[in-house]
């Protein structure tokens, strides 16, 4: 049987956060709140005359998590402050916080009006896409700790982690690209205008003007050559040093020859040069670079464990609680972890019972109950009341973080992957050099000057600018199309790699199963309204993970008082409600019969229920597989070989084989290292591997795989470092994405073909030694524009026909 939750007639929604209110008891000025936290925030805002917050959007607020006074104690330490702040002078400190809760225009409004809450804040500015809040405050009047507490008190808790303090400065490069485009566009426009007289009035008599125009052009092109083109030449040089010929090599040859020949012609007064083509070429190339550099600002693809862990933890020493930074944590330290805090190192639980949320580690957000003496891994989150732990390993040596010591995380380069364009440019350069030399030798009898002219002409028209632009525009557009479908790819190289994969590895927990959402069914006689209210009342007293799930599964009902409530560890709950004895728990506890595992279909969690010692049936709680999983698998199975890795036991073996077919390899009991090694093993057999995972335990495998996709229910929350982030809602389109990436590869080849046609036309002119500046000036933009138009139109069209 299934219960629906729709039979509640009138639901009250919290005025502040819009959540359901359990009852209507918390009110203020006829406004209903779901909890005192929300009410407090409302009171703060009202006192600060900031209620406009509620008029911009309906219930925009965030229910505050518990606010502890000493939560930000570590922000008093000078060392921490200096690592966090942007700058400091005698009066003002500027600091940037990352605030993941920011979600609507009301948030922007409130956070930018912080000065109304506290005079010591001089200005606060929001960058919504990056979810960053920059605050400037007078540090003599308010401390950093107080600022953090203030924004936490209104529901916007800043996320302060190790990684955020370490990396924040990689965004300067984009600024440089804008500068370069600006300079190139300026030079391109002006040189083109100065070239017109030469083109339009070919018989211009006054030599004086022509020389003036060309000298001005040469002057304008200097910054283009020395500033805008520098990246290409540096890249080509680095490639040569590593004995690799990349696409930037023929480009650099083209650029250098274009510039030196033009400069030579102008200075020797032998011709007008090709400076308009030269500056236009760089302008288009840089535009392509900008188009390709589409980034998702609020997403972070390069997280390591440091971005999950807090900066400090409370250590208990000689009856005193001291905040200690994670890196100073020693083996044997007693640490106190509070609700929703992350355990920073492998430790042993000291408190009798604690509920642990392993979602960071496995991706599964189910609560697990742990007893005193149990080992808890770093990265787990505590849920419920505070607990004490003893550290048994340092943070950097813990089970999970140890993974980051693997070499794979130290390789910053794009491994040994060669892009299509780089692979082609090797042959391209070779062919062009041969053609150039042959023509040079052919024209040599007609004079050295003539043959040098032909050679440079060949190198100019062969400059593969259209070739260099087809990849960024095709793949850059693909990146955008994917982004619209909640599939965020890190860069265009990842799209290329995705096109080439032939083996797919899935992580089970959290990736193909839906985290948090489990399937609960009740086997036995259908519960009537009264019975279900009894069970709900009983479970409302327990914080056991299974009780909570059953509680939320049952429809809302009036609660009754539970007499003689008892919760027995590892057994179950019992209590007397309205004269009926209700028991809920293990089979042995409820029915008295020992567990014989044969009776249940698999090892999913089974909770028995009895009324007055009469067994009514059992609740079965199972992981639910993602929607559309079997269709996706069926489609992928036709093209790729598939493996499934899981850290779990073999309880769901049959179901997995049913889903994935018997051809697939399904491995159980996989440690994070084993997953990484499995990927390496596949790669050593020549496979190009796509890995889909979600937890920190997949981080190694995701990094090792040719393409690592992390699947997440909430973009921007926790996802390990990967090449792409796939929102769970788009999981069912996975096969479409892979197919589309492969198809765009073909489009890149076609646009290569188009650019070759222009190259051949240009070569015909060059070979005969009649490449005039005007032909170059016409041919070059046409070839670039047609490649760009083809790339964007064809990818959009393809996306439409494939329904992406």
């Amino acid at each position, binding site marked *: 049987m299934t219960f629906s939750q729709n039979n509640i007639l009138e639901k009250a929604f919290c005025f502040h956060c819009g959540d359901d209110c359990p009852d209507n008891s918390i009110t203020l000025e006829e406004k209903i709140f779901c909890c005192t936290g929300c009410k407090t925030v409302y009171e703060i805002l009202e006192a600060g005359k900031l209620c406009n917050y509620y008029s911009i959007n309906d219930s925009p607020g965030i229910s505050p998590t518990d606010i502890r006074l000493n939560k930000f104690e570590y922000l008093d330490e000078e060392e921490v402050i200096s690592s966090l702040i942007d700058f400091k002078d005698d009066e003002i400190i500027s600091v940037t916080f990352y605030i993941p809760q920011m979600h609507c225009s009301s948030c922007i409004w409130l956070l930018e009006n912080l000065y109304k809450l506290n005079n010591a804040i001089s200005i606060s500015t929001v960058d919504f896409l990056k979810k960053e809040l920059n605050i400037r405050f007078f540090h003599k009047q308010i401390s950093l700790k107080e600022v953090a507490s203030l924004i936490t008190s209104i529901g916007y808790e800043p996320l302060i982690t190790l990684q955020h303090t370490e990396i924040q400065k990689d965004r300067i490069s984009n600024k440089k690209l804008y*500068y370069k485009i600006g300079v190139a566009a300026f030079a391109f426009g002006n040189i083109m205008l100065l070239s017109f007289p030469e083109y339009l009035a070919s018989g211009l008599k006054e030599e004086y003007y022509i020389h*003036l125009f060309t000298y001005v052009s040469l002057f304008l092109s200097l910054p283009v050559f020395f500033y805008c083109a520098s990246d290409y030449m540096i890249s080509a040089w680095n490639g040569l040093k590593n004995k690799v010929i990349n696409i930037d090599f023929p480009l650099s040859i083209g650029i250098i020859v274009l510039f030196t020949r033009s400069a030579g012609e102008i200075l020797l007064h032998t011709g007008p040069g090709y400076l308009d083509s030269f500056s236009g070429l760089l302008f288009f190339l840089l535009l392509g670079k900008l188009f390709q550099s589409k980034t998702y600002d609020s997403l972070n693809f390069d997280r390591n464990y440091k971005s999950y862990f807090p900066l400090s933890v409370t250590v208990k020493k000689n009856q005193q609680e001291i905040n200690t930074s994670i890196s100073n944590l020693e083996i044997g330290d007693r640490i106190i972890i509070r609700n929703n805090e992350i355990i920073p190192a492998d430790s042993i639980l000291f408190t009798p019972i604690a509920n642990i949320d392993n979602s960071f580690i496995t991706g599964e957000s189910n609560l697990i109950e742990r007893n005193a003496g149990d080992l808890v891994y770093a990265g787990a989150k505590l849920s419920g009341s505070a607990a004490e732990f003893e550290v048994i390993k340092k943070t950097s040596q813990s089970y999970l973080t140890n993974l980051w010591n693997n070499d794979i995380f130290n390789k910053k380069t794009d491994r040994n992957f060669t892009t299509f364009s780089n692979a082609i440019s090797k042959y391209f350069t070779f062919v062009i050099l041969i053609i150039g030399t042959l023509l040079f030798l052919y024209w040599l009898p007609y004079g050295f000057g003539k043959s040098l002219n032909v050679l440079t002409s060949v190198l100019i028209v062969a400059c593969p600018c259209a070739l260099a632009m087809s990849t960024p525009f095709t793949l850059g557009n693909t990146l955008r199309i994917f982004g619209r479908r909640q599939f965020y790819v890190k860069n265009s190289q990842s799209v290329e790699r995705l096109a080439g994969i032939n083996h797919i590895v899935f992580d089970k927990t959290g990736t193909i199963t839906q985290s948090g959402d489990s399937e609960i069914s009740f086997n036995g006689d259908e519960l009537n309204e009264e019975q279900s209210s009894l069970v709900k009342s009983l479970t409302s007293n327990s914080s056991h993970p299974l009780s909570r799930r059953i509680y939320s599964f049952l429809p809302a009902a009036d609660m009754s008082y539970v007499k003689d409530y008892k919760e027995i560890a590892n057994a179950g709950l019992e209590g007397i409600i309205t004269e009926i004895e209700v028991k809920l728990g293990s089979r042995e506890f409820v029915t008295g019969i020992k567990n014989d595992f044969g009776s249940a279909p698999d090892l999913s969690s089974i909770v028995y229920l009895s009324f007055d010692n009469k067994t009514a049936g059992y609740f079965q709680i199972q992981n639910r597989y993602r929607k559309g999983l079997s269709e996706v698998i069926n489609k992928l199975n036709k093209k790729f070989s598939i493996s499934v890795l899981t850290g779990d036991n073999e309880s769901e073996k049959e179901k997995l084989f049913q889903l994935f077919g018997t051809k697939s390899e399904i491995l159980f009991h996989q440690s994070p290292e084993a997953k990484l090694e499995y990927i390496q093993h596949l790669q050593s057999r020549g496979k190009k591997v796509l890995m889909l995972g979600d937890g920190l335990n997949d981080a190694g495998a995701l990094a090792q795989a040719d393409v690592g996709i992390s699947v997440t229910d909430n973009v921007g929350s926790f996802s390990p470092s990967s090449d792409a982030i796939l929102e769970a809602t788009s999981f069912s389109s996975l096969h479409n994405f892979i197919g589309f990436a492969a198809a765009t590869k073909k489009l890149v080849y076609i646009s290569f073909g188009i650019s070759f046609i222009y190259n051949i036309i240009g070569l015909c002119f060059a070979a005969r030694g009649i490449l005039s500046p005007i032909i170059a000036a016409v041919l070059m933009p046409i070839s670039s524009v047609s490649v760009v138009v083809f790339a964007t139109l064809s990818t959009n069209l393809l996306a439409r026909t494939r329904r992406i």
Partner: protein
Amino acid sequence: MSVIVILIFFSLIVAIGFLIAFLWAVKSGQFKDVYTPSVRVLFDDQNKIIDDPESKH
């Protein structure tokens, strides 16, 4: 014809002015966040209405 030389000189000065304006705009962060200002500009009006209801609009 020498007026052309003067014109070119002036046109270049104007163009360089625009280039400097663009570089300044990039430097001052106008391309850093292209979303939030679009929301922010809508707030000021509402702000005035609530803060001083008697103000003349």
